[in-house]
Structure formats: C-alpha cells, structure tokens
C-alpha cells in the first residue's frame, strides 16, 4: 500500500481546518469505546490479565520459529492448506493463485487490516474479481473508496449525515433514512454477496499452535458468513498472531473484546479448524492459511521495537489517544494509525517514510495504560525519535536549536544572559515573531509574557 505518513503534519492540520466533522465523529466514538473499556477492565481487575497476556505473547515471540512450525503441523492435520508470504508481493501472488486455480469470480472480505496492508483488494480487482467488503463500516468506506480510519471501527470518522447522503446518492434511500433502514439496504446487497461468492477472505485475531485453531472476533456475523458460506476460505495471518495453547483463548478472547469495545466477548467468535468434514452438512470445501511476514521478522530482530509484535489489534490505544481523537486515522497515512501505528509503521516500512508519526504524540501515556498486552508505546515513540535524530531525519534548524539550547543550559552565565535578554525584548516581541517556534506558539495562543522578574532575581533580592 502507498504510505503517505510524511504528510501527517500537513494532513492533520488540513483535516482540523477543513473537515471539523471528522473530529466530532472520532471524538464521540473513541470516548465511548474508552468509557466502555474502562468499565470492562474494572469488572475483572484487568491488571493481572494484562501482565499474564504480556508474558504469554513474549513467550510466543521468543519461540516464534518453533510455534510457527507447530501451528503449520496442526493446520495441515486439520486439512488446511498452509502458505508462507515474505512480503506483500508474495501474499498477493498466493491469493491470486488460489483464486485462479479455483475459478473464483466473486470474493467476500471479512474485515482484515492485514489485507489492507498487503493491498489485496486492488490486486483482486486487477484480476477482474469482484470484491465485496462485508463489515458494514468497511462496506461504507469501500463505497467511498477510502481506507479504514480505525483498526476496529473503520468508518468512525463518518457521521450519520454523510452516510445518509452516500446511501441516498447510491441507492436512492430517503435523505433522512434511519440507521436501521440504511443497514437493511446494505444487508440485502451483502446477503447476495455471501450467497454468490466463491471465496471468503478473512484475517485472524489468533492462531493457536497447539490445535491449529483460527480465532476471529466480530459483532455483525459477516465473518462467520464469509468463512462458512463460500466454498473457499482464505485467512491472512500475521506471523505474530500465534498463541501456544487452546486454553489461552479464554483470556485472550475476552481481554481483546474488553480492550476493544468494552464487551465481555465479541458478539460472534469463530474458532475454525479447517474445511467441512465429511459428516458436516455444509461449510467451505477448502481452507487456506497464509502466514505473512511483511517486515515482522525484521521488527522481531529490533531490540526495542519487537515488543510491538505483541499487538492484538484491539484499537484501545487509538481510543485512549487524545492526538488520534483530533483527526482520526487517515491523517497518519498508513494502514495502522494512532499510537500503535506510530510505533509499528517505522518498523514495518522504514523510518524515513514514516518519520512524523513517532512525533504525533504528546507522550501522555494513555496508550500504555490501556494496552491489553502492555506494549510500552511511549518508550518506543522515544526510541524512534532518537533514531530519527541519529539518522539525521529531523529538521536541521531544530537540531541546531536543541544543540544551542543544551549548551546554554550547561553554562549558568549563558542561561542568565538569555533570561536578561528575554526581558529586554520589546513588549509584543513574543507575539508577532518570525522565529518559527514562537510563531507556531502564538498562532492560537496569547503571546508568552515573561514574569517581570525571574524567580532567581526575586530569590537574590531576598524572599
């Protein structure tokens, strides 16, 4: 996929200026998610769960090669065909080959962020395969030709009015149609899709190495349908999604749901073990699992960033993040947005292409507080910033200013001189300034006024 993360500063400002409704919608949705999460965490005293989940994931990641092999064996024993993709190109080729071999003409998609990361939809289109997103939010943004703006709620940046207008224009629904009526229109169309599709493509929330169980969490039922009705099911699974034991699902399924939406469990949880068995009345004839690396093994090799691979893609950090809340996900210019996107993106696609993202944070720490697997996001943001400095990716002027500042701050006399100079500036000098830093300050805030006398002067005069 195209990464436009370097436009974050401009794009976030533009969104705030030109599309204030996005901030409204995203703020409403995320505050709501976060409130529900807080209650759901409190109910079980999530602290112990989070510690435990972090340890399980660390164990899996530090034994990832053997767990992947175990998972492959279990999957094959269940009758699943297993594929391995090193990058997006290989993943696309695998999906294309499966589709071609089976004469697939129509595909239903069951919400997969990984498929966005890999650019699966455009590839299918280019093959002439009709691809339908079936998660209601995904379907809406597919109509608008937009990427998801949130890991769990792909369309939270849209308000009801916009969706009404879209459906009015596309399907001729009344301009004041109720959400129920709009969902009814989508249901009819998508129901046809489920019944006609040759292949369903899903992601995977978890894959249990012990039993080869693919676990999927949802609220709508579209994932159950996409993985049950078409004759082929293909799941794209990031190599970091493994869990060791079937029993681990008990905590991980509930913890993820609590973190994501504040539910005790997603309305529908699918635990899939392969194609239809001989005695079963229905189900897919063939099931494929594609293990996807696409930069993950490189992240695993990173002494700091490897911890991002614990991520269960619940979106809790996005919901808690006051920075994300202002713009929603599109400003980030990458499939994973918000705090987790800001620390994942540099690892998966490179710092040079995503340099502004680690700076898209006030370091408030709310993300770490809510993360179900305790990814130290603030620490990692700082780590990426350090690397940006080391790799000379920060503005030259900024670097010079910080160096000058650090020098002055280790020379008490220079510090004093600067303080004096500050007070000798003409009134208003700090209001209408050409110094970029101060300019940015006064463009929405009253000018800084130094105290008439510095504290140190007052101290020396005798307090």
């Amino acid at each position, binding site marked *: 996929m195209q990464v436009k993360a370097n436009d974050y500063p401009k794009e976030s400002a533009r969104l705030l200026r030109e599309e204030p409704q996005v901030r409204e*919608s995203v703020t*409403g*949705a995320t505050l*709501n998610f976060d409130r529900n999460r807080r209650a759901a965490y409190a109910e079980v005293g999530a602290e112990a*769960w989070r510690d*435990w989940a972090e*340890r*399980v994931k*660390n*164990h899996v*990641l*530090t*034994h990832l*090669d053997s767990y992947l*092999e175990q998972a*492959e064996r279990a999957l094959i024993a269940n009758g699943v065909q297993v*594929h391995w*993709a*090193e990058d997006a190109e290989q993943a696309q080729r695998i999906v294309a080959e499966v589709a071609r071999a089976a004469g697939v003409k129509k595909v239903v998609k069951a919400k997969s962020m990984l498929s966005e990361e890999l650019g699966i939809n455009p590839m299918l289109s280019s093959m002439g395969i009709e691809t339908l997103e079936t*998660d*209601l*939010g995904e379907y*809406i943004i597919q109509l608008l030709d937009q990427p998801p703006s949130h890991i769990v*709620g792909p369309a939270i940046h849209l308000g*009801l009015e916009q*969706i009404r207008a879209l459906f009015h224009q596309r399907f001729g629904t009344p301009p004041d149609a109720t*959400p129920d009526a*709009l*969902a009814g229109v989508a*249901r009819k169309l998508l129901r046809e899709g489920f*019944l006609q599709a040759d292949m369903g493509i899903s992601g995977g929330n978890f894959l249990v190495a012990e039993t080869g*169980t693919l676990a999927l969490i949802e609220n*709508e039922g*579209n994932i*159950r*349908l996409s993985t049950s009705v078409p004759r082929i099911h293909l799941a794209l699974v990031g*190599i970091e999604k493994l869990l060791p*034991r079937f*029993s*681990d699902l*008990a*905590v991980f399924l509930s913890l993820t749901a609590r973190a994501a939406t504040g539910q*005790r*469990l997603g*309305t*529908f*949880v*699918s*635990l899939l*073990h*392969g194609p*239809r*068995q001989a005695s*079963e*009345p*229905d*189900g897919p004839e063939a099931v494929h699992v594609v293990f996807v*690396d696409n930069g993950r093994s*490189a992240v695993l*090799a990173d002494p700091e960033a490897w911890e991002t691979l614990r991520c269960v893609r619940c979106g809790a950090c996005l919901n808690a993040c006051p920075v994300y809340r202002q713009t929603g996900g599109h400003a980030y210019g990458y499939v994973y947005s918000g705090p987790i996107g800001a620390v994942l993106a540099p690892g998966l696609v490179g710092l040079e292409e995503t340099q502004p993202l680690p700076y898209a944070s006030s370091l408030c720490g709310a993300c770490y507080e809510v993360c179900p697997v305790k990814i130290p996001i603030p620490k990692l943001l700082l780590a990426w910033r350090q690397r940006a400095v080391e790799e000379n990716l920060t503005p030259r002027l900024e670097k010079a200013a910080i160096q000058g500042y650090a020098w002055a701050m280790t020379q008490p006399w220079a510090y004093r001189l600067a303080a004096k100079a500050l007070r000798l500036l003409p009134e208003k000098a700090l209001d209408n300034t050409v110094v970029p830093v101060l300019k940015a300050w006064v463009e929405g805030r009253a000018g800084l006024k130094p105290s008439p006398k510095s504290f140190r002067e007052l101290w020396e005069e005798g307090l």
Partner: protein
Amino acid sequence: MKERILSRIHRALEPRLKAELPAPLTPTQVSPDEALKLFRERLSGNGGEVVRLAGLEEAKSWLAEFVRAFSGVAIGSTLPDPLKPPLPALPPEEAPLGVSWALGAVAETGSVIVGSAEGRRHQLLPPTHLAFVPQHRVFGTLAEALTELKGQLPSAIALHSGPSKSADIGQVMVRGVHGPGRLIAAIIAWEG
C-alpha cells in the same frame, strides 16, 4: 519462502532472552446454580433472550407456542427429533427461523456455543436463531467451556453472545446486520 522466514526469525531470536510460558490463568469458579442465573443475566444484557424449560414436555409445549409466529424453519442436522418444530422445512436463506442443538453455553460471557457438526447456515442466515442448550452444558466460564470442547473440535465452533449488531452507521446501534437479529437460548433440563 517458509524457510527464509523461519531462518530470519531464528536469527532475530539469537540475542533475545527467552521468555517462559506462564501457567494458564485460573478463572474464578462459578457454581452450576450461579451459572444459570448469570447466563440469563449476561445474555439478556447483550440483547439475547433466555428461556428455561424444566424438561422435554415443557419444551414441546413452549415450542408449539413459539413457532406460531413463523412460517417455516431451517434446522441443524443434530437437533433431537422431539425438538423439531412443527413447521415446513425451508432452505436457510429463506427460513425466518433457524434452530440449533447447541454444544453448550458460557455464563460469564452470556454465550451460546454452536458447532459445525449440525451445519452452519441455519445458525447465520435466518433472522431469528433459536438454540436449545442442554442444562448440564451451561459452563460457568469460557475457560471451562474450552477445556470441555477441546476433546472434539469440529471444523467450526462459534460463540454467539447476542443478536448481530453494528454501530458503524454514525455510532447508532443497529441489530441484525448480517446474522440473526434475534437470539433465543432455550435451556432445557434434558440430555437429548
């Protein structure tokens, strides 16, 4: 491809300290009586419905009454004969009602557990889903349920914890988006 991925992972892990696998978290215990009460509370809270049936006779008369609102039915292939609704059979995509013989239920999450051995479409396509749950299969916790299920894993197991829902249209909750908009769990004191 596989070998290259695995060798990259192997190299990545060489300098990394290995983390131990912690013992499974032990869930809080829920007694069978508590479980029934909690299940009703939790599934109702999620927007589902719960009926308790003291035995087969009561189930039959309840069912006769219940199906009067429906014109046809799609049933799971393992549904015991006495629980088959007196309705014309319809394909799942046309039936207004789907009936399951559940593998069990989970009290703490308010979930009905259904499996693919009885088929899947009737659990998903009709707008109303009725699942009979044998009373002795109402587990207190998800952990207990998973332990019980692990012995025999069909191609799909699903936990349904209420009606299909979405808030993707302007954050307004809509029911019955793709799956059933109505879920009824009928707990039956009978082992099938």
